[in-house]
């Protein structure tokens, strides 16, 4: 015969744990720039969503995508493509992190291991490439703008001033 303590133990064990998600754990829909007040139990907080909320999230997604290139080996494309070097990926990532353009680029990878960032919209086209040798190259063209190009821009110097001005046309 079971003792009272054993019956209590079995009864407790038979009840599944309650896994209610606390209300503060699920982020509510938010609107950039609006003020929010939330009671998180022990304290009341007031905050607003920064203007760059979605921009930062989108940029982080691009950074994740660049880091995903680390998983690729030679023949990643099935056509004998060369795997990108760690340095090329880091150069592109750091360059992307430092960008303050209104519009974020897309990422791409070429068969010769070049890691690329590019914009293509409304007649504007900008293609920037990194091989991990400390330099980046680019070509840019747009409506009524003189095309820009460079074969040897230094990654450590960041975005070329004239290219930065060019990219400011994108919105």
């Amino acid at each position, binding site marked *: 015969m079971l003792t009272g303590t054993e019956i209590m133990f079995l009864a407790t064990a038979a009840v599944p744990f309650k896994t209610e998600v606390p209300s503060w754990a699920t982020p509510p829909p938010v609107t950039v720039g609006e003020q929010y007040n939330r009671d998180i139990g022990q304290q009341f907080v007031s905050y607003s969503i920064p203007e760059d909320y979605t921009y930062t999230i989108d940029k982080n997604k691009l950074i994740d995508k660049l880091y995903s290139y680390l998983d690729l080996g030679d023949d990643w494309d099935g056509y004998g493509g060369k795997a990108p070097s760690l340095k090329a990926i880091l150069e592109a990532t750091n360059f992307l992190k430092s960008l303050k353009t209104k519009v974020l680029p897309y990422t791409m*990878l070429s068969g*010769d291991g070049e890691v690329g960032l590019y914009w293509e919209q409304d007649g504007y086209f900008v293609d920037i490439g990194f091989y991990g040798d400390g330099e980046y190259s680019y070509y840019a063209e747009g409506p009524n703008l003189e095309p820009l190009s460079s074969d040897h821009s230094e990654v450590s110097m960041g975005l070329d001033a004239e290219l930065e001005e060019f990219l400011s046309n994108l919105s």
Partner: protein
Amino acid sequence: MGCKDFPSKDSVTGQDCPHELNSVSEHSPGIVTDDEDLVRAVFSPIHINEVTGELDPSAFSDVKDKGLSTDRESHTTRESIVNRANNKVEEDKASGKTDRELVGFVKACCADIRSIVDEENERCFCVYDTGLADNSAHSDTCQSEKHSSSRSSGKKFRKRLKDKFSISPLSPESYLANT
């Protein structure tokens, strides 16, 4: 075979794309003529912008060294082109590229590719009849040495080449139905 096997300029006469004038493959039905349509299979995720559904510029990057592989539509059937692309997906998946999918096909006219020239009116791309034992309709487009030696120039003319192809791929079903 790669682009380096076909110098893009005759060192004596200075003529552009001299190897276009004679067949470069024993498996080829003949040189690629200007009026031919060239079809390129598009695979995800390697060729495609997942946001816009359009081709990445890098989908054309092989043009500077290995050669941009295309099928000559007038020397094969659409069914064969689709079957080859599906077989390529199966091969890639079998070798561990499990995310590989066939998105569809883009097309360009050979004359349009050959018409791309630089500021000095020199040809930027050559198109060769690189027929294979199991695909006589295979062709390759190669960027000239002059334009692939500079990184920015390579990007500029890669964009020109991309613009000659259809913007968004036709799905295999649409490609087969669109005669």
